[in-house]
């Protein structure tokens, strides 16, 4: 059991495994996203309040879910890397940031596009959009700190501290934004009444979320390979991979 685990966590095995994993993640992700989009756009009935416009949630909700899930993944990986000094974990954290930032941006844009027909304005200082905006800033801060260091080792550890400080702050930010928004406006239109949501509306959303998650894992596997190679540059296997004489690469 444990030997299997350590083999998995050893960089060359991970490098090889990640490569073989990518198609197994990305193709099902594509399939699920297409099925989810078809279900969401065609099969699901129109909402009695929001008409066809509600269909934006089929891309907005998975994006905003990923934006947060990726941040937590990044922080957990960063914490593991910092405490147990595992380079692989730092490689995972480094790969998360750009992906998470783009999904945060997607969540913001789709949220605004949903807001225009619903509120009559693209931007409303309401809790979800505001939190999402702050999350985008957290990603930007993380990425610019990462790029500010010359030494990769130092960059890994410093950005890990920031990721941890950020993840402790995320719930605080979330609740203070909720509290702050509660003072300003009446209860905003809830996007969908969660308990009464029809199954025909729900399943495409769940399929989409699953598809997006698999897509993220696939992208992560691709990116981690590069990051691992960079961190393991001075090891024998990585140099063999680069020279193109490696069994690791061939497999």
């Amino acid at each position: 059991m444990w030997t299997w685990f350590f083999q998995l966590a050893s960089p060359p095995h991970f490098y090889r495994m990640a490569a073989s994993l990518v198609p197994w993640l990305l193709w099902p992700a594509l399939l699920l996203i297409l099925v989810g989009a078809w279900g969401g756009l065609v099969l699901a009935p129109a909402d009695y309040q929001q008409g066809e416009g509600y269909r934006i949630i089929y891309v907005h909700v998975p994006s905003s879910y990923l934006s947060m899930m990726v941040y937590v993944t990044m922080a957990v990986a960063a914490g593991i890397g910092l405490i147990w000094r595992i380079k692989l974990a730092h490689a995972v954290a480094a790969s998360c940031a750009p992906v998470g930032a783009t999904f945060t941006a997607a969540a913001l844009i789709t949220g605004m596009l949903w807001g225009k027909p619903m509120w009559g304005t693209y931007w409303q200082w309401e809790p979800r959009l505001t939190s999402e905006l702050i999350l985008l800033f957290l990603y930007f801060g993380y990425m610019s700190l990462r790029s500010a260091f010359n030494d990769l080792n130092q960059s890994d550890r410093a950005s890990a501290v920031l990721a941890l400080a950020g993840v402790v702050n995320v719930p605080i930010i979330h609740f203070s934004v909720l509290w702050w928004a509660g003072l300003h406006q009446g209860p905003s239109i809830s996007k969908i009444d969660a308990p009464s949501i029809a199954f025909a509306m729900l399943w495409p959303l769940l399929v989409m979320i699953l598809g997006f998650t698999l897509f993220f894992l696939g992208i992560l596997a691709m990116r981690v390979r590069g990051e691992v190679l960079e961190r393991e540059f001075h090891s024998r296997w990585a140099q063999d991979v680069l020279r193109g004489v490696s069994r690791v690469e061939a497999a």
Partner: protein
Amino acid sequence: MNLGLGGLFWVVLQRDLMVAMRRWSDICNPVIFFVLVVALFPLALNPRAEFLRALAPGVLWIAALLAALLSLNQLFRADIEDGTMEQLLTLPYPLGLVILAKTLAHWLVTGLPVVVVAPMLAITYHLPADAIGILLLSLLIGTPTLSLLGSIGAALTAGLRQSGVLLALMVGPLMLPVLMLGARATDIALSGDDPTGPLYLLGALLALALSLAPPAAAMAIRISAD
């Protein structure tokens, strides 16, 4: 060792204050900046009394946050450059406590003056006396939290050459809850309601920052000094 933890805290605090006192201009800069930012708004917007009154809580808190961000850059930089940090790192003392002492010293010379000046500026914004009291209280609880949060960022960037904007970008989002709560407390007091709720929350944030920020900053400073 003769020096207990309280002694360590006191020695570091005293030394940092002494160094700060020798550099008067450095102490004055954040406060002058604070006054300047606060003075910009009536000039740029509209000096009508009721308009300024509604603006005051937000403007004063934003200016306090900007002044805090501006001053943070220097928190650990000099110590890293002149080798003092190497000495503090090889000492057999908990580094978090050293960081806490340095952060307190930093708040005393940059944050406290802002808190002291704020009521006077609030008068120029035609804020009523009880709202000024709440503003003072919220700044008194809130600005140490800003310094503590900032100490993490300052520790992370202390070894970098260009770090002003980076520091603001990193730490700014983390400081937003303090800003929202502080400004809102004053706002609530201005409209005649009871502001104890946000003040308690500000206190809770301060307690949280006091316990979590120094160890995080200590970890960060070890990385920066590497």
